[in-house]
Every structure is written in structure tokens, then in C-alpha cells.
């Protein structure tokens, strides 16, 4: 299956990429960095976090790099003051929506949301905090689900459905009421389809899904285990 080659420009540099690739894939293949939160190598992109927004010349609106397929002659800008402003706003809105209290979080120091906020220079948040009352599900013997840290990136949903094939997780309700839910809103420990593989825990960018037994700052995620599994199995998205 010979892929048609397309030439695009990323930050002014001429790049040859395969047809059907997304902007993010083309950029990655050529060593260009685009910040992401909800994207994970080997899982279908959903474009939930809006951190990977890029500018395409000739079009006013911004495009999420993870879901936008490349087109011949496309010229993409991955970094500009405008993009930083929007990315910063996306991260601020994520921080505002739940109780992201880094100081007492298992993932403090190993959190993708935290490092994204640091990288974008989010040291203050310009919106009012939501402070929702959320539960922590400790029913699973090995893992914890803490809704307070969840950013609804749905990586756990996708890794469970696409890699493990169990589809324990999904998102219930919508808007501000959206939550990660296992099976029919059961406790995780009671979910019979869960195989206890822990892929969701490793795929989770924050401390929302963590292993039990770790104290603050101790939960180091092994994202590499998920992505290497993708490459071993040759998963095509």
C-alpha cells in the first residue's frame, strides 16, 4: 500500500508527509513539537483538550493538530503569541473545572497537566474556580479513581476500549456534569469487565487514576508501557 506523499510546511520548514496523516503525526515524524494532553500515540484522536491548536495560513480559525489531516501545500504554524494565549486559556479552564490541588496529589511532579501549565507559564488562573464536590472511588483493590483530578481527556476510555478491548470506561452526562464512569455507573471494584490490567492508570495524564499505596508525589506513570505496546501490536489508527 504505497502512501501518497504530500508536501507541507511546518514553521516554514518544507516537510514531506504521508497522505492521511494528521498535522500532529507529520510534525512528530519530523521532530517538530506540538504540545498535547488528550492525544496518546496509538489511540484514536478526539481533540478534547484544545492544547494542540495550530495556525494554518489562509484560515482564520485554529485547528487541533491531533485531528486535522494534512493537505497538500498546507502551511502550519505551531507556535505564536496567539497560540500560546489560547493554549494557556485551555489549561486554565481545565484547572478551574476540577479541584486540581497539586500540593496533595499523588502525581505532583509527574503530572502532564502540571508540566503543561508550567511550560505555558500558567502561574495564575484568570477564571473563577468551580470547586465541585466530587467523589473518590477506592473500591478497586489496586487502583484509585479521583474525579477531582480528572480532565476528561478520555485516554483511559480509549486505551481500555482500543488496546485492552474491555471498554470498562466511558463518559456519562455532558457539559459540566460529565464524568468518567465504569459500566452502568458502578463502583470500579464491582465492574466485572475490568481485567485489572492498569492500562488506564498508566495512560492517565494526571493523578485521576493512580495505583494504591503511593503517597503525594510518588505516582510515576509509565506511559512508555502503553505506547510500546501499541508499537509491538502494530496498532493502526
Amino acid at each position, binding site marked *: 500500500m504505497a502512501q501518497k506523499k504530500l508536501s507541507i510546511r511546518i514553521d516554514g520548514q518544507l516537510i514531506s508527509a504521508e497522505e492521511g496523516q494528521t498535522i500532529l503525526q507529520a510534525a512528530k515524524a519530523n521532530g517538530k513539537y506540538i504540545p498535547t494532553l488528550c492525544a496518546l500515540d496509538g489511540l484514536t484522536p478526539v481533540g478534547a483538550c484544545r492544547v494542540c491548536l495550530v495556525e494554518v495560513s489562509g484560515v482564520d480559525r485554529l485547528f487541533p493538530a491531533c485531528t486535522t489531516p494534512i493537505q497538500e501545500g498546507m502551511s502550519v504554524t505551531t507556535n505564536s503569541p496567539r497560540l500560546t494565549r489560547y493554549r494557556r486559556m485551555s489549561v486554565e479552564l481545565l484547572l478551574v473545572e476540577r479541584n486540581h490541588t497539586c500540593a496533595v496529589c499523588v502525581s505532583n511532579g509527574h503530572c502532564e497537566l502540571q508540566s503543561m501549565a508550567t511550560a505555558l507559564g500558567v502561574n495564575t488562573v484568570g477564571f473563577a474556580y468551580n470547586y465541585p464536590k466530587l467523589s473518590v472511588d477506592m473500591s478497586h483493590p489496586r487502583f484509585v479513581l479521583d474525579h477531582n483530578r480528572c480532565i476528561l481527556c478520555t485516554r483511559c476510555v480509549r486505551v481500555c476500549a482500543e488496546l485492552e478491548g474491555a471498554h470498562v470506561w*466511558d463518559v456519562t452526562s455532558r457539559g459540566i456534569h460529565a464524568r468518567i464512569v465504569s459500566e452502568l455507573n458502578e463502583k470500579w471494584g464491582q465492574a466485572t469487565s475490568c481485567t485489572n490490567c492498569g492500562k488506564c492508570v498508566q495512560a492517565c495524564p494526571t493523578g485521576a487514576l493512580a495505583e494504591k499505596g503511593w503517597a503525594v508525589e510518588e505516582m510515576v506513570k509509565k506511559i512508555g508501557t502503553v505506547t510500546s505496546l501499541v508499537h509491538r501490536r502494530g496498532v493502526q489508527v
Partner: protein
Amino acid sequence: MSTPSQVPLPTEEQAYIDNVVGGWTGRPGALLGILEAVQERNPHKYLSLETLRYIAMKTRTPLSRLYSVATFYALFNLQPQGENTVCICRGTACHTRGSRNLLQSVRLDLGLAVEDSDSDGNDADKLLLTTPDQKFTVRTVACFGQCAMAPVVEVNHRICGHATERTVQREIETIRAGE
């Protein structure tokens, strides 16, 4: 959420679901059609967890996917519904014409809690309350598209424009008297 019924599904309902699922095989978007048909047949117009479990088994859909779909769409109810539905619009136009007071008075008339505990006092949230005798369900919607007649109340799928506390009271009395 509490489970309204833990009893296994009656065989005739199982047969009906089998039939509906069979009719939809191989067609995309089948899940919504199946859920709608099954809910419509239920006397209390809702989908019990047992029903969802059975549909999941028959359609080979993951349980979480089914729950996600059933909670995403306002059309599906997971709790038994009352025989009569009073639907109050909480859209902007109706809000400015006093639909909040209307909602409060309906809740008082039907003896439903005026402030529900988990809404944090934010009454812009979607609301769904059923009287203990299963006669009335009060719910809110964002807009009926009848803003010129604000405030709008829908009683048993009939739109009543320019509603006042008195007219809604009368509607409820009429329903009560008709029984």
C-alpha cells in the same frame, strides 16, 4: 444512583427487546432507535438498569457505552416517570418573564422539594422531579423555541404560552379532576 428495580426482566419484555434488536441488525445508529423503542414501551417511560444490561448483552455493546449514550441524551430516562409531565422552560426569554417563580410554585403545588440538595442552589441545572405517587413529573428544558410566548410550560406535550402560576395550577387541577 439507586437502582429502581433489581428484578430480572420479564420474559415478554425480553422477547420485545429481542425483536427490536433483531429489526435493527446491521443498521448504523441502531442503539438510539433501540433505546427509544424500549423506553416508549415501558409503562413508566424509563430504562431500568436491568433493561440496559439486557440490551447491552443482545447488541454486544459495552455497558459503559450504553450508559454513556443513555445519560448523554435528555430523551432517555433512567428513573420511572410520572403519568403526567409538566415541562417548564428555563431558557433566557422565559427566565426574564419569570419562569423561575413558575417552577418554584409548581414544585410547591405538587409537594416537591423546593431546593434540591445536589444542585448547589444553581437552578439553571437540568431538573427532573417526580411526585411520590408517580402522578406528576416536573422537568426543565433549555428552550422550546416558543420564546414569543414566554414563559412557556408544556403539560403532557401540549404547549401553554404566556403561562402564569394560576394557569399552570388550573392545568394541574384539570388533570387531577380527570382521573
